[in-house]
């Protein structure tokens, strides 16, 4: 039996107060999974625990059957993390940045260089490959970081708000690329506040609030769970998380 791409079991995490309380989440391999939730729901903390940036107080994290706490290097080798704030060095150029990231993942230059060129061309960064990132717009920085996340051909991509700062055409291109990655058998987990993205793109959607997984499934399953089969995802999301605040007159 194939291992799921990500399995979080009974995860607890507190900072000043409990943030995640008994979270169970399983993402099967070869899926595009959207993790939704209101601000402060614990989405980013959950993903940071999945990639080994934050240690859970309790519970286990498995990536493709690998215990990500005990054998973190093996888990990291097949995982990519793209946070909402791009992890970049302003004084490096995109090609130098990719060279450094490939070095960290120990990708031989003969494999990494052509892949870097492909990514830079695809993300329309080829013409600025030797320009320092410090003058780039937010969207361009996001694209450089995305190239960095993909250069080691990860089996599991975990992306926190990956479309932030991208223009419409590039956002479309990234969505297509994520879909293509899933079609190739990879697994993609994204968080997003743009519910339309989750609605159109995701195979399964998880809704998290107050550190717990409230509901999970396909869009149809979520609608059924919320008891309103004709709702949009937005309606379902609001119904499941909380009543919206009344707009003051």
């Amino acid at each position: 039996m194939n291992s799921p791409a990500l399995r979080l079991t009974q995860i607890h995490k507190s900072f000043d107060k409990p943030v995640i309380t008994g979270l169970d989440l399983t993402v099967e391999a070869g899926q595009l999974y959207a993790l939704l939730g209101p601000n402060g729901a614990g989405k980013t903390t959950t993903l940071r625990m999945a990639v080994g940036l934050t240690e859970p107080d309790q519970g286990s994290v498995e990536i493709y059957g690998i215990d990500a706490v005990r054998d973190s290097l093996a888990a990291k080798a097949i995982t990519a993390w793209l946070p909402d704030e791009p992890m970049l060095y302003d004084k490096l150029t995109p090609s130098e940045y990719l060279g450094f990231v490939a070095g960290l993942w120990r990708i031989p230059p003969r494999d990494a260089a052509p892949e870097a060129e492909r990514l830079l061309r695809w993300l329309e960064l080829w013409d600025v490959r030797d320009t320092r990132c410090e003058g780039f717009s937010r969207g361009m920085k996001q694209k450089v970081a995305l190239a960095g996340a993909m250069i080691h051909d990860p089996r599991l991509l975990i992306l926190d708000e990956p479309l932030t700062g991208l223009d419409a055409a590039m956002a479309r291109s990234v969505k297509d690329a994520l879909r293509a990655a899933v079609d190739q058998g990879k697994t993609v987990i994204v968080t997003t506040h743009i519910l339309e993205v989750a609605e159109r793109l995701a195979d399964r959607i998880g809704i998290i609030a107050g550190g717990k997984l409230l509901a999970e499934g396909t869009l149809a399953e979520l609608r059924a769970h919320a008891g309103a089969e004709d709702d949009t995802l937005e309606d379902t999301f609001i119904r499941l998380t909380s009543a919206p605040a009344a707009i003051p007159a």
Partner: protein
Amino acid sequence: MRLLPPGSFVWLVLHELRLSRRPAGKRSRWLMAIGGALVLGWIALGVWIGSLLAHVPIVPGAMGMAGAALGAILLFTFMTTQSILGSQRTLYEAGDLDLLFSAPIPPRTVMRAKLVGIAASVVLTFAIIVLPVALPLAWFGHPQLFGIPALLLALALTAACFGLAITLILARLAGPRAARTVGQIVAALSGGSVFVASQYFSNGSPRGQRGAMMEALFEKMVASGFGTHGVGALPGLAAFGDPFAVTALLAGSLLLFILTTRGLQSLFLSGYRAGGMKLSRPKSSNRSVARHFHNRLFGAVFAKEWRLMARDPALAFQVVLRLIYLAPLFFIIMRQGDDDHVLIAPSLAFSSVLIAGQIVSSLVWLAVSGEDTPDLIKVAPVRKNEIDTAKLSAALVMSAPLALLVPLGMAWTTSIPAALFTLAVTGVAGWMSGMIEVTFAKPAPRSTFRKRRGGGSFVRGIAQFAVTIFFGAIAAGGVWLLTTTFQLPHLPTHL
């Protein structure tokens, strides 16, 4: 502030003052308490000195006038330096100009408020140093010294105008990035050069001549009429309360302030716009990307650390500048040579260890604590000790050219065995110093390098000091043994 009309000039100035008194980042209560106690102690000392000198006549003689003029020049230099840094912060770092220029406030009002904010920040810094002594002196029987606060104010306002003008002209001529770099280097240089000069006069001059050199220089200035004639006399006269001089200096600085805000308004606006634009020059290239990829982790880490250092000249300069603070040791060593030539080689061996320790710890701090994207390193499939070793090795390689200087000099002037021994101990000491830095590493922005904030800084400092002294002593002792027991040639006496 609540009583003032919102958006008015004074309201904006008070807003600037409030911001300038709030340092970036958290400041520990202990540090605040220690700082407060020091200021109170300084004030108490000033009051004591004031009461002590209450009946001692203070008259503006030639010496006093020259001293006041010299002090004013020194203060003005420091104030201009601070103003350059303040102008850079205003234009490129504060990030509030977008808000201010988008508000319905005339741009000139914004610029005036910013300039007053810079001057106020500068004057407050120096007021803490000067006024706790000057004001009690004035209060206890020397009311003419109430001219000193006015002099400080005029100097600060003039320095703020100069600082802003220098920054804007540099930005116009060389672009915002070069303006920042040059400004930071100029600021560091001016501080460093004053320190080296003071060390030379206190330690560097031959024995018995230290005080005499200063005195002779000062007497020469007095004899030439420095600070007693024409415009040069104004600072002295103002400091000693001459109403005309005080009025002339304040009016002059105010006029300069008005002329600066009128004359430099368009430069200020273009500087602000350029600051928001791309900092990097787009580079077209036909070269492939393959040259940036490495077979080993060390290659990737070294290339990254080297580029980050090479592309931040102001930071690299600060690293080298730390060596300037070893100047007292250097001057003491050179003076030892006057007494006993046998001690020169061991002293040089000791300073070699000191230099290596300083540079390696600085570079390791930048590579490990000053890592811009610690999360990228954490999510990579690399063990922490591997990456730390790679960074430490990169720092050692980068510091090698400077750390090699003394051993190379010793090989040339003393003996190759002594130089090799010094080199070996220097290498070990550099490694140990770097390991201490790695052990106490705590993420911090690279821009805070000068202050080196971070956990364990006290323990780290003590540990590095102990390592330096220990290995420095080994190096010095070993070289002394090599040069005396085995009768190796000593340094030539002319050194």
